[in-house]
Structure formats: C-alpha cells, structure tokens
C-alpha cells in the first residue's frame, strides 16, 4: 500500500507523462502520416477529406512510458501485467492497421492479451483475485475465472473498436467510462492499479483534442484495441469487472446488436447492407433495409436524421447515463460491504 503523499506524487508524474507525451507527439505523427500517405477518407463529411491514421503508436508511446515509470517506482506485478496486455492488444491492432485481416483475426488474436494477466498471476501472483466481484458479494470461482479473463479481453478490445465509427466517439467514450472505473478501483481495488489506470484516462483526454469532431487523426485499430484491452485489464486487476461492464454498456450494446443481427464475426467493411445512409445534406439516417445490421448509431437515428456531431453527442449522453448507473452500482456494493 502506498501512502497518500506517494500516491499523489506518482499519480501526478505518470498522468503528466501520458498526457504531455501524446499532446506533444501527435502533431508530428499527423505530419509524418500525411507525408507518408497513410490517409483514409472521413466518410461522413462533405468532400470526404483524407485523415491520417493510425494514432495508436503515439498513444502507446504515451501510455507505455507512464506505465514503465510506474512499474519502476512500485515494482508491482499488476502494473506490469496491465502494460503487457496493452502492448499485445496494440500489436494486434497495428497488424490490422497495416494489412487488411479477416474478421476473426482481432477477437482471436486478442486472446493473447489475456496471457500476461493469467501467467503473471500463476507464476508471480498479485495481479488479480481468484474471485469475481459480483456487486452483492464475491464469487470464489478459480476454475471459471481464468477462462473468463480470456473472454473479457477480446470483448472489451472489440467493443471500443466497434464504437469507433464517428469522429471523437471512441476517445470521448473511454474518458466517460474511465471515471466510474477509477472510482471503483480506488474503493475495491489497489492503489497501484488505480495509478496504472490514470495514464489511460489522461491519454484519452490528450488524444480527444485531436480526435474530436472534426477529427485531425484517427486512432486506427491499434488505438482502439489498446484502449479497450487496457480498460479490460484494469477492470480485472482492479476487482471491478461488473462495474467496468456497466460503464461500457453502450459499447457492449453496440457489439451485441451487431453480432445478434449479422450472426457471425465479421468486419464492418465486409457488410454490404449499411446500417446508416449518408443523405445529400450530409446528415445520417437509419437504413430501412431489414437485412442491414443493427447498431447503436442506427437505433439513435431511428427517430430521424442527425448530423455526425449530434449522433456523437447522443452517444456521450448515453455513456454519461451508464457512468451514473456504474456509480449507483458502486454505491450499492459499498453499502453491502459496510453492512
């Protein structure tokens, strides 16, 4: 356990490293990617401007530097496990950014991101509990917990990846979801995992400056998968699995709606019937095609066309609601534990 002074100093140092590394490196990354022709069209804009992608390497550099400093300061195994899981998810995303991989690649390859959490717990210990925090109590399930980690990591990675459909949504969504997760880790987890979570929040805040509408750079699969997998690893190491899922509900709902309607694991780009239609006035409308996949954006647009920025605002309102529900869940759990 760290004392309050160390907690404040370490927290300030690693948050600053993560935030300023991304703020300062991103303009150079935008110039470099643009010069190298690594550009993709921003499909929902007039004239479809070309936007550089991916920002994942810069985000990874900022978070990685902060986590390495934290590990050297604390020598905590959970911090190392979270860092290694994040690096693996980033590598999986970078492969997908560099070459077009089939739909099964990301969920299957993300299983590897669970390995540091499981193996470091087995060989060193101190990464996570063997019991699942179920709000109303803990369930000691050593047999089920390891497979559960292999389920959680691909799910969290892919849910953030699948919600990255509009400018600023993935980064803004992570910022909102991180607030209740940080509170939960502070109450039910450890000081070290709480500190390990700060670089993710500050990286997302720094990246949002460049990713918000109108985006100057896209995160790419490397950025979204590292965001999602790191979030999952923190929820596991911080004994906040259910609260983490609740804060992530709109993204989970988006993945669930998509999978339940297409009934197979497939990339969005491989779907012929689009869930939304871009109108002449550049507003988005819900597709009326019954075979089009169901997505969160399509449901938001079911009441009428909206522009891209307004759809993003609706998603953020929904994320704020689920963050409040996550806080309510923390309050319920805290009250039960106090009884």
């Amino acid at each position: 356990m760290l004392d309050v002074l160390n907690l404040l100093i370490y927290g300030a140092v690693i948050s600053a490293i993560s935030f300023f590394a991304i703020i300062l490196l991103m303009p150079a990354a935008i110039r470099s990617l643009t010069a190298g022709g690594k550009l993709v069209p921003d499909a929902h804009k007039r004239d479809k401007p070309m936007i550089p992608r991916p920002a994942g390497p810069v985000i990874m550099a900022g978070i990685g530097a902060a986590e390495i400093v934290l590990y050297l300061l604390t020598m905590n195994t959970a911090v190392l496990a979270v860092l290694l899981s994040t690096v693996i998810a980033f590598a999986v995303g970078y492969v997908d950014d560099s070459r077009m991989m089939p739909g099964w690649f990301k969920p299957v390859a993300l299983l590897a991101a669970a390995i540091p959490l499981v193996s470091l717990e087995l060989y060193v210990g101190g990464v996570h509990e063997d019991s699942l925090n179920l709000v109303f109590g803990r369930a000691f399930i050593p047999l089920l917990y390891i497979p559960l980690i292999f389920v959680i990591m691909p799910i969290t990675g892919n849910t953030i990846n699948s919600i990255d459909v509009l400018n600023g949504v993935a980064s803004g969504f992570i910022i909102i979801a991180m607030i209740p997760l940080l509170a939960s880790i502070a109450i039910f987890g450890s000081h070290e995992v709480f500190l390990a979570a700060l670089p993710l929040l500050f990286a997302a805040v720094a990246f949002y400056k460049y990713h918000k509408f109108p985006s100057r750079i896209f995160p790419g699969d490397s950025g979204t998968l590292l965001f999602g997998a790191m979030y999952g690893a923190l929820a596991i190491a911080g004994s906040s699995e259910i609260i983490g899922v609740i804060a992530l509900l709109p993204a989970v709902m988006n993945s669930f709606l998509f999978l339940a309607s297409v009934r197979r694991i497939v990339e969005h780009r491989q779907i012929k019937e689009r869930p939304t239609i871009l109108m002449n006035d550049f507003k988005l409308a819900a597709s009326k095609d019954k075979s089009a996949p169901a997505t969160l954006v399509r449901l938001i647009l079911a009441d009428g066309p909206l522009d891209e920025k307004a759809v993003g605002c609706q998603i953020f309102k929904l994320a704020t609601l689920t963050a409040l529900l996550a806080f309510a869940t923390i309050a319920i759990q805290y009250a039960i534990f106090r009884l």
Partner: protein
Amino acid sequence: MGFGGLAIFVVVMWTMILAVAAFLVIFIAPIDMIMFDGQARRLTVSVVQAAIAIIVVVVLVFGLSRMKRIYMQKKLG
C-alpha cells in the same frame, strides 16, 4: 422519445445484469450447502457452480436478444 427509449433500454439491461449478479451470489455461491449439504468435493462444487453460472449468462443473453428484437421492431418497423 429518441434518447428516452434508448435510456430505458440501457436501464433495463443494467437491472438484468444486477439481477443475475444477485442470483449468482445468493443462490449459486452457497450451493455446496444447498445441494450437497457441505459434503461434496471442492472440484465437484466448482464444476456445478460454473455450469449454472454459464447457463444463467446464456439465459441473460437470450433475454437481451429478445428485448433487442422487440425494440428494433418498434423503432424500425
């Protein structure tokens, strides 16, 4: 109604998740006492608990899928 409908959908999902969590803690965690009178081997109890937990989660997913279908029909016709 647009945001209101989605907000209700999310709150129902949250309630269902909490209900499943409560069920697992209240009924599945002490199952060695309820079903086996505290006499079963740890491994047997764990396997039974894991099997019931998986079934309950599958039922939750089916429930959510049904809710989604009703919501989609109402919204998109």
